[in-house]
């Protein structure tokens, strides 16, 4: 992978040290010609040859962190005097003053590493490929029996281009893990970088580390909706792919999941173009899926210990079990509709029970009403994701495929539903990874807008706690968080702090002024504030200093381009949407027959039958659907309402 250049190129600079600016074991200064290829972020090599009498030489690699230019002008006033106060004349002076280009470099590595001594005052060379590998300690994981190198981009300086690799053990665990990427929005940096890096990981993930997959939450627009479609690349991009030994191709295996819209039949995603919508799976959850994560969606200020206890009771004793309500009714609560029937039965029972008080199974009726209210609110706010009735449709837990990307599109759903999706998916990942039955050994979870899910301040939400848990313990499980945000300072300190690898795109100046960036030199900050598209600053456990790299644009279709090439289809009328879903399951289905069948039927009945068909995936989809839908029921006159005895009779008067 590493190409060694011709030996002994001429030096580009020389280390200088003064009492005011000495060379130390961690920093040195060197000068170059005024016209030089050296710039901020350049990697250089300082050599001190041995004396041939047993004393070994020393090689120091450093990265340029600051630059200075000054002339022999004693004071600015002398320039004014020389130009007689006319700035135009200053440029007319027959001689150009002596100038210096003085650079400050931070030491990346010394060879030998012991004894650690100040940098020798020797010649400075630009780094070669081999130097970059040595300087960044990549030699430890580039070679050997089980290399773990993942290409992250190209270090470029002065015409030199050297691949930079991350260590999979430190990017994806178990030594360290997680990646955090910051950058201002709108420069196609964060998402593009993650798409590129995921592609690189999938192609270079070491075989001895097993199988890997990625779960990406699409939280805005069409960003991740076209990962399986090839994007436009320029020759320069292809050359960079080749240099990095990565095939420039879209992801081979991508599964899309999106909840329905409120109508329950049209998918809530921008990937609804007829050519693409076929491989978008609906994400539909029922009562069990929601109740297990009720804590996520219920307001902590609203739900007290009593409500918690009642929810636990429902979860442990009622849901999915044969249950008697104590008023003579037997229930099997599987769906929200079943639960609603149970609640009505309880309320009716308490009201009709005649003075049996206002508690049921030790739970106060007010608590029961509150929980009922909140749970029904979930199904309202997350309509399309949460089904009142009918079966759920979920990610393929236990059947995750190697090198597959699972995109969960929650861009257009209610924030409450986003939280629910996020919490449940990640929790399930964790459960399965703990049991080692997910189907893969490691999962990269990409979460954009991390400042929203794990803000530095604000309430302790379930989602935040879960992200903290992943950040701190996920690496042992193979659960790796790739988080992105615009402002790193607004993300919880422990979430970003636990990210072994940090990536920075172009940064906002205000953000760079926050304490988290104090370790960067002013010049590095300026470079970060003006970073072009496609260039990143990377911090990695093996790199003692941040390194700037360039990466090719991802080989997948960008969200905006995808929407133009595959414009989302307009929402279909209910009947057409049902037809489309059935045709997707079975191409033999005849639309007219479906439309005739569902005419005048209640939409919830149709949705339930459709969901069952979708879940069952029968050979004959239409026959199954028809059976689930059942026969038409003739309208019956409403039964006379039973009279209800007052709970607290006021008098015994017989009238």
């Amino acid at each position, binding site marked *: 992978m590493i190409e060694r250049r011709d030996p002994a190129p001429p030096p580009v600079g020389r280390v200088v040290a003064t009492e005011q600016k000495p060379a130390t074991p961690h920093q040195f200064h060197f000068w170059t010609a005024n016209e030089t290829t050296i710039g901020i972020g350049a990697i250089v090599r300082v050599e001190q040859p041995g004396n041939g009498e047993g004393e070994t030489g020393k090689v120091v690699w450093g990265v340029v962190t600051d630059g200075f230019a000054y002339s022999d002008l004693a004071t600015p006033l002398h*320039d004014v005097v*020389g130009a007689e106060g006319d700035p135009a*004349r200053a440029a007319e002076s*027959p*001689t150009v003053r002596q100038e210096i280009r003085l650079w400050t470099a931070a030491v990346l590595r010394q060879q030998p590493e012991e004894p650690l001594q100040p940098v020798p005052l020797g010649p400075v060379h630009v780094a070669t490929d081999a130097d970059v590998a040595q300087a960044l300690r990549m030699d430890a994981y580039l070679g050997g029996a089980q290399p773990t190198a993942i290409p992250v981009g190209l270090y470029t300086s002065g015409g030199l281009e050297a691949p930079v690799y991350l260590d999979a053990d430190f990017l994806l665990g178990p030594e360290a893990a997680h990646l955090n990427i910051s950058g201002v929005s709108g420069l196609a940096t964060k998402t593009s970088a993650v798409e590129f890096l995921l592609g690189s990981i999938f192609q270079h993930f070491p075989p001895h580390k097993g199988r890997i997959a990625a779960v990406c939450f699409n939280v805005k627009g069409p960003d991740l909706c076209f990962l399986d479609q090839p994007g436009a690349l320029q020759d320069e991009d292809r050359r960079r792919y080749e240099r990095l030994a990565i095939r420039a191709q879209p992801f081979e295996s991508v599964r899309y999941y999106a909840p329905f819209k409120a109508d329950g039949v049209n998918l809530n995603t921008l990937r609804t173009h007829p050519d693409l919508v076929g491989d978008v799976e609906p994400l539909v959850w029922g009562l069990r899926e929601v109740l297990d994560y009720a804590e996520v969606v219920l307001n902590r200020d609203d739900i007290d210990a009593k409500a918690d206890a009642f929810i636990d009771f429902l979860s442990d004793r009622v849901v999915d079990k044969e249950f008697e309500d104590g008023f003579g009714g037997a229930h099997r609560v599987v769906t929200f509709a079943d639960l609603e029937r149970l609640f009505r039965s309880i309320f009716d029972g308490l009201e009709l029970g005649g003075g049996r008080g206002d508690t049921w199974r030790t739970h106060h009726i007010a608590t029961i009403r509150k929980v009922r209210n909140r749970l029904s609110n979930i199904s309202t706010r997350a309509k399309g994701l949460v089904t009142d009735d009918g079966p759920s449709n979920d990610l393929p837990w236990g059947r995750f495929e190697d090198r597959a990307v699972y995109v969960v599109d929650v861009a257009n759903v209610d924030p409450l539903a986003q939280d629910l999706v996020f919490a449940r998916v990640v929790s399930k990942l964790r459960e399965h990874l703990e049991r080692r039955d997910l189907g893969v050994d490691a999962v990269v979870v990409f979460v954009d807008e991390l400042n929203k899910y794990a803000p530095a301040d604000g309430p302790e939400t379930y989602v935040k706690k879960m992200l903290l848990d992943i950040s701190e313990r996920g690496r042992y499980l193979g659960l790796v968080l790739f988080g992105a945000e615009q402002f790193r300072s607004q993300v919880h300190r422990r979430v970003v702090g636990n990210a072994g690898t940090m990536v920075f795109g172009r940064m906002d100046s205000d953000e760079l002024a926050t304490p988290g960036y104090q370790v960067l030199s002013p010049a590095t900050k300026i470079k970060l504030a003006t970073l072009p598209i496609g260039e990143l600053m990377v911090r990695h456990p093996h790199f003692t200093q941040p390194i700037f790299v360039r990466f090719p644009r991802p080989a997948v279709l960008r969200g905006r381009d995808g929407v133009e090439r595959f414009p989302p289809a307009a929402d279909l009328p209910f009947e057409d949407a049902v037809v489309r879903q059935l045709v997707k399951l079975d191409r033999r289905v005849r639309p007219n027959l479906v439309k005739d069948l569902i005419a005048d039927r209640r939409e919830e009945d149709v949705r339930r039958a459709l969901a069952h068909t979708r879940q069952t995936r029968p050979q004959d989809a239409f026959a199954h659907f028809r059976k689930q839908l059942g026969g038409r029921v003739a309208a019956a006159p409403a039964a006379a309402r039973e009279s209800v005895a007052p709970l607290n009779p006021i008098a015994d008067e017989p009238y």
Partner: protein
Amino acid sequence: MGAPHTLTESRSWVDAILAAGVVPACYIPDASVGRTDLEEFTGADPVEDPELRVHSLAGARALAPAAVGFLDGIEQWRVAGYAGVTPIVRVYVAAAVRLRGADRRPRTVAEDAAELAITRLDRLPAAVREALQITGVRVVEISEEDAGQPARALPAVRIEVQKARAALERRLAEQRVTALGSDEWLVVDGVLSDSAALSAHSRALGIVKSHGAEYFAGVELERALTLPAGHRTSVFRPKRRGARREIYSWYLRLWPWEGNDLLYGLLRVEARAHPETVARASAISAWLTTERAPLSTPDRRWDRLLYPIHDVETYLRARAPRDLVLHPASRIPHPGSRLPRTGS
């Protein structure tokens, strides 16, 4: 091109004479004031005008050579040791030509350096003489009378040092002037008239900053020394002295002297004794006036020191042996001082 590794050489012969019994010493004289003009009245003949007059440079079209070489030299010396009361002085002289081209950046095109020992050999013990001979260092002797009196020895040494430097400069300048391009000039820091080749060349100029020699008296002297800024005097011919060649010369004021001193910003220019020089005196003067910028500060002679000359000097000092100058960060007592330093 390229100076010899004088540091290694000097250490070898200094170590040798110390090993031969010379008492080590450390005396570094005050910085050289450079080559000064003769301090005497010599007189001058009018060339351009019947008497010395003042010419304004306003409207004069400045000469703009495509390339200009600037030549300067340095001298550094220190007493390395004493054999009895006879000093043995280590001397380093160097000179360089830095050529300024279209990019306005000077680059070294010629340089030379030499190291020598100055002493009186017959006053040294045989072992020391032998040590000097073995090491091969060039030895310049001072007179017997001067060597016998330390108070006279060091001024005598200084004169020999200046001679060595002047000889080196002259040699380098004469080499360079033969290779001068068709639109290239050579500006020398000091007089031209001590070199036949230089004083005869049509594109060689001497810039004299010290004004020990007096060429005029009375009204003409007053005109010369109260020359306004941006003016020159008439071209004159200094009267020949000793080995000096015939030359044309004129005064030029770079900066207003009022409020400073009569010699403030005052240069004397030397050029070939030829009618063409008279014709070009204003153009040359206007050119030299443009050389006021950039200022050659922090040198105290900045009012007369052209920046390119200052640049040559800076270059030479940067390459001189470090042990011949006192490092500004040094905390040891100043070796030239007879008293220990106290306090800070």
